[in-house]
């Protein structure tokens, strides 16, 4: 089954829409799916033109396609456990929160908290991701625990904060403090970043661009070769964060 959701024009286009109901399993039965526009509950067809093609008997046979002005739509794919969501343009915050299986493709940019506390499945963002990509929630000790996040463009600050499992790849640049408080999993940064892995206690972070403002509390333990983008790169290997009894591994390309 393919469900196409195209946004209708809105009177107040800047008010965010919360749409955690947009996940494949909810479209199996013709439920009264609702979303929120600010503090008002709306029926799905008040916000979208809806087209449904073909049948499905299980959520993994459902594909949802979102198009139009989708940059303010939050929480799409939250708790998704099967199927596929394709976003033709940009997507709002918290896309793929707690996702455990299935696939989300974003053809534009993703707003903050992409794949927050993700457990499994794949998110692929072809544009840029904003801050806290593949990160956690305030006060919680573990962020993303499993699955794969791939960002073809750049990501903002605090990328993969509290990463505990799974693999996050940012092919472009990251902002400040990627991998901060990281405790497991793998973070790969194809481009440049600042102050990577502050306070990390575990996991592996590899930086194939430049790492500015490296923190003074990482111990250089030699070098190693790593592959990225079809090439082998010589990397300096650091252990840390020493400020925090950390046993994480940080690899930075030798330029």
């Amino acid at each position, binding site marked *: 089954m393919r469900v196409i959701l195209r946004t209708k024009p809105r009177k107040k286009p800047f008010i965010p829409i919360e749409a955690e109901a947009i996940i494949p399993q909810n479209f199996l039965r013709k439920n009264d799916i609702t979303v929120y526009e600010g503090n008002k509950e709306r029926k799905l067809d008040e916000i979208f033109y809806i087209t449904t093609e073909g049948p499905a008997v299980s959520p993994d046979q459902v594909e949802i396609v979102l198009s139009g002005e989708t940059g303010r739509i939050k929480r799409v794919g939250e708790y998704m456990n099967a199927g596929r969501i394709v976003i033709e343009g940009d997507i709002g915050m918290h896309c793929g929160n707690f996702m455990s299986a299935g696939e989300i493709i974003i053809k534009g940019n993703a707003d*903050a*908290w992409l794949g927050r506390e993700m457990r499994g499945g794949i998110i692929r963002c072809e544009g840029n991701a*904003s*801050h*806290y990509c593949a990160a956690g929630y305030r006060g919680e000790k573990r962020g993303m625990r499993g699955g794969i996040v791939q960002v073809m463009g750049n990501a*903002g*600050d*605090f990328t993969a904060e509290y990463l505990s499992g799974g693999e996050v790849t940012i092919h472009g640049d990251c*902002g*400040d403090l990627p991998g901060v408080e990281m405790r497991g999993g793998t973070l790969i940064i194809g481009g440049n970043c600042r102050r990577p892995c502050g306070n990390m206690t575990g996991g592996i972070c590899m930086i194939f661009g430049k790492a500015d403002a490296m923190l003074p509390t990482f111990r250089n333990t030699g070098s190693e070769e790593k592959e990225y983008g079809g090439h082998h790169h010589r990397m300096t290997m650091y252990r840390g964060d020493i400020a925090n009894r950390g046993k994480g591994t940080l690899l930075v390309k030798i330029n």
Partner: protein
Amino acid sequence: MNFLLNTGRTIRQGSYVERKNSDAYKGEATSLYMHPVDMMILEIEEGSHVRVESNQGDVVMKVHPALWISQREVFVCLGPYANYLVAPETHCSGMPDFKSTMVTITPTTDLLVTVAELMERCGGVRYED
């Protein structure tokens, strides 16, 4: 010439904080503290007006020499003038970069504006007692 703009509290700003439309408040909130060496480079005197410009906008301020600040850094007390230059980006922390705005400073003969005028530039309508 480019500078890093830092903002913070001053006792005078605090003193006039409930009189934001007064000349006293305007005087303090438009005071820009700069290292004397930078003032020499810019060829300006104490009390000279400067145009301070960031990627958000520009506003006129009055220069005061200060040895307690490093070269290439300037200080303005927190308030609407400094905030006219500060970007609203918070890095999803909720907190703007109040202490690290890149600005360009050039001498000017333009006048200082009042808080009411500044707010009008933001789309407001001035209220006068």
